[in-house]
């Protein structure tokens, strides 16, 4: 064993030890978070996510330029790591390589891949540097990020590849007899360029390149834990442990036990967050895809989901590193890093969560902080107060008389559950009308239209009438878990009293809340959104509609509701219902549609808040809809309806906004 090998062995062991100590430190930091036992269930789904989103980079490819670029580096890294292992063992054990352990074609394949992927990685790194330095891609240029870190990392990766080619090539020059042009064609090409060197000079060059590569590898390993490129280590575990693509239903807020003796409601600091949210902070590489799709951010509000995650990590590190814990309380995550204004800008649309390539859940951090603001400190925009009070007093965020809830149905011969129960009957479905559907003049038209469709299709349904209350979604999304649980429990009691099983509703917020979040409080129902319900009625031929095959061809564009789309993956049913009702219609898509759809601006309680900063989100969305040239906009949510109709009207555009149900009801045979 040469002195060089001894020296390398010592460095190698130290580097590994240092890395292990750093990982242990990071795990210790994660343990500062709250326990979260929802991360190890349903292993098949988790492995599926790991493969799909992690290994096969499914979400990375949502950006068609950065996608292949990153995938080349990622896959290249995976493959080159095998070569690095061979390299490191060779550094400790003189003359070691994998060749004797594999049959020739396998080793040849391995070697060839090392060469080819290293070249691909260099190309991708070059492209990445070009995007950062020359093209200056917007989402990568932002004050909240650490702009020099990626340049350092990219240069480091390029150096790793170059030194690898160098030591392979100089080895060939030094020992022409060992040349393997077919296995390492690129290294061979480099060797050809240096063939003028004497074997002894090449041997020295090889040793230099080899040592440079070795030190770069070990240095890289140990730089990671201090860099945003910790994501190299943290993202794959994060994808596996994340619940944002299942297991379980997406977009469901964390259950909260209000009976227990909680010291902190929601989260005020990183120590109040789940350890998984802290891991999210480690996994974030500041790519900014979340922020680039955030409706609040893109219309000029202060919120940036990327900043939220950067703040979580920064705060965790400052907290963990502080020797004197009493001093760190001065600057908590809430207020010290993240302001109230940022938190209240969120529409809870879930675009950030959908977009994150490594399954980070920015939204749950925002929601936990909101819970602290409201439950702990009663801090919220003043204009929200009437909505809270009205939900509490009248079971609806708007100050309508609860006695008028069923008024839209007068003269329509629609029974209430109470009336049916009195007759000893049970409906096929309960029609959950919701507050907007019951009280808002525009939404009531949708309500009536949907009821007409069901009546014409012979669906036996009932409503709750006065017994229905707000499901609590706005309260919950605004952090008022107490009010939410009060409303939800009241509703569950009413639904269970009548033994309700199947519910249909025209409101995606009711749909999501009752179907996916009531189970946390013991309410279990099959909830169907009216778009799916109408679609299936149409498919079964139960709806007596006139299918006009002639006449003017209308052009529709459909605006996806976040709580229907991203939260519940219902994208096709509303579109299909439109097509079935209007066979000759043109359906054009907006640039941002389906799981990339832009929020209308009303979710997350934003409906009840002023929007004074930046451009109005609904204006942004309406402009996008109008730019398609459609003469009608279809929606499937009463909140979207208000937002879209208002902004279309304010632009004096001669374009109508319809709910899916109105379109279908318009085709009913007289």
């Amino acid at each position, binding site marked *: 064993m040469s002195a060089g090998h001894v020296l390398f062995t010592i460095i190698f062991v130290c580097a590994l030890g240092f890395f292990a100590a750093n990982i242990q430190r990071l795990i210790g930091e994660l343990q500062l978070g709250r326990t979260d036992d929802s991360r190890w269930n349903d292993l098949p789904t988790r492995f599926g996510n790991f493969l799909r989103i992690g290994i096969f980079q499914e979400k990375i490819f949502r950006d068609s330029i950065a996608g292949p670029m990153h995938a080349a580096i990622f896959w290249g890294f995976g493959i080159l790591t095998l070569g690095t292992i061979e390299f490191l063992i060779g550094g400790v054990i003189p003359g070691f390589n994998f060749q004797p352990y594999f049959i020739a074609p396998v080793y040849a394949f391995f070697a060839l891949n090392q060469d080819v992927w290293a070249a691909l990685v260099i190309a991708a790194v070059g492209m990445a540097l070009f995007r950062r330095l020359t093209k200056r891609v917007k989402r990568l240029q932002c004050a909240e990020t650490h702009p020099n870190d990626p340049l350092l990392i990219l240069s480091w990766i390029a150096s790793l590849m170059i030194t690898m080619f160098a030591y392979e090539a100089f080895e060939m020059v030094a020992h022409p007899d060992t040349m393997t042009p077919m296995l390492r064609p690129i290294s061979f090409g480099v060797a050809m360029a240096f063939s003028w060197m004497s074997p002894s000079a090449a041997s020295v060059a090889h040793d230099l390149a080899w040592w440079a590569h070795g030190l770069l590898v070990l240095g890289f390993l140990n730089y990671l834990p201090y860099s945003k490129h910790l994501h190299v280590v943290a993202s794959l575990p994060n994808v596996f442990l994340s619940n944002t693509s299942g297991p379980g239903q997406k977009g469901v807020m964390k259950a909260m036990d*209000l009976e227990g003796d909680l010291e902190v*409601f929601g989260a005020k600091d990183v120590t109040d967050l789940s350890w998984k949210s802290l891991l999210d902070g480690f996994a974030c590489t500041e790519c900014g895809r979340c922020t680039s799709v955030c409706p609040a951010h893109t219309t000029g509000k202060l919120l940036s989901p990327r900043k939220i995650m950067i703040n979580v990590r920064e705060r965790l590190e400052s907290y963990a590193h502080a020797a004197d814990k009493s001093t760190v309380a001065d600057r908590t995550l809430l207020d010290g890093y993240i302001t109230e204004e940022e938190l209240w800008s969120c529409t809870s649309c879930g675009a950030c969560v959908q977009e994150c390539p490594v399954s980070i859940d920015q939204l749950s951090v925002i929601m936990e902080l909101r819970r602290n603001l*409201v*439950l*702990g*400190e*009663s801090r*919220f925009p*003043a204009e929200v*107060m009437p909505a*809270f*009070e*009205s939900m*509490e*007093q*009248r079971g609806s965020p708007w*100050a*309508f*008389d*609860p*006695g*008028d809830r069923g008024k839209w149905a007068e003269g329509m011969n629609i029974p209430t559950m109470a009336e049916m129960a009195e007759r000893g009957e049970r409906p096929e479905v309960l029609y959950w009308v919701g507050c907007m559907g019951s009280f808002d003049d525009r939404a009531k038209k949708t309500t009536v239209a949907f009821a007409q469709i069901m009546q014409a299709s012979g669906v036996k349904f009932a409503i709750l009438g*006065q017994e229905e209350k707000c499901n609590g979604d706005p309260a919950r999304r605004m952090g008022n*878990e*107490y009010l939410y649980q009060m409303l939800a429990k009241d509703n569950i009691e009413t639904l269970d009293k009548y033994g309700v099983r199947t519910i249909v509703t025209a409101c995606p917020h009711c749909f999501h809340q009752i179907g996916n979040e009531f189970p946390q409080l013991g309410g279990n129902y099959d909830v169907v959104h009216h778009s799916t319900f109408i679609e299936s009625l149409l498919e079964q031929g139960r709806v007596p509609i006139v299918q006009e095959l002639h006449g003017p061809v209308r052009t529709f564009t459909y605006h996806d509701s976040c709580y229907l789309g991203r939260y519940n993956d219902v994208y096709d049913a509303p579109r299909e219902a439109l097509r079935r009702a209007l066979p000759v219609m043109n359906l054009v898509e907006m640039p941002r549609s389906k799981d990339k759809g832009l929020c209308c601006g009303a979710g997350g309680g934003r409906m009840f808040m002023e929007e004074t900063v930046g451009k109005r989100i609904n204006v942004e969305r309406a402009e996008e809809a109008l730019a398609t040239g459609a003469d009608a906009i279809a929606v499937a949510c009463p909140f979207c309806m208000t937002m879209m109709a208002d902004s279309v009207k304010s632009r004096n555009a001669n374009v109508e906004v319809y709910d899916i149900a109105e379109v279908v009801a318009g085709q009913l045979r007289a």
Partner: protein
Amino acid sequence: MKIAVCIKRVPDMDVRFKIGATGTSVDEAGLKFDISDFDGYAVEAALQIKEKANAGEVVVISLGADNVQETLRKAMSMGADRAVQLKHDAPVFDSFAIATALAAEISTGGYDLVMFGRMSIDTANQATGTMVAELLGLPIITAISKLDFDGGKVKARRELEGSYELIECPLPAIVTIDEGIARPRYPSLKGIMAAKKKPLETKPAQIGEQSYTLDKMELPAERAAGRIVGEGKDAVPELVRLLKEEAKVL
């Protein structure tokens, strides 16, 4: 400073009322109750005085059946320190009888300041606070929109049409609160939890003799629906005719 705030439990006014079967009370089915609006301002103002001084006590007092306990808890969840229920199961409409009971309670409390809402939003008599002041022989400033303290004096501002007046009187005193003084805070869950553990004392209400009783309640007659007489300038003559002949306002 020790402050008492007298609060009343009233129904939410944004619902349609029905008269109960007896004809002398409101049908409570479907009604929601809360602190009367002006009393809520008074509670908030009292809490702010205490918070500013970082000392003192705020006691809330309400007269009524056990359901007023919910109202008292709400005030405590906002931050009041303790509560007193003057228990009386049947509704009382006579302000003087109520004032008598409240005065009896307040006289034993050693309060520096007693606060009322300017009026309750259900019966709107504006009488109780003033009557309590008279019964206790204390100075009173009514319908104030701002208050300050200077030595042993309270200085209050009353809004008048187009102007205001500033009045001061020595403590102890009674004030009744108009809107605009402070927006009542929304109780945090922390406050709600804390309120469950705060003391709520129940005593029989020493109601005086009721000099008047309620005979009958009636809803106001429904207003006739509006009419659209036409559109544009062609409709003007008809509108003028109706205003003259039917509405008789021209």
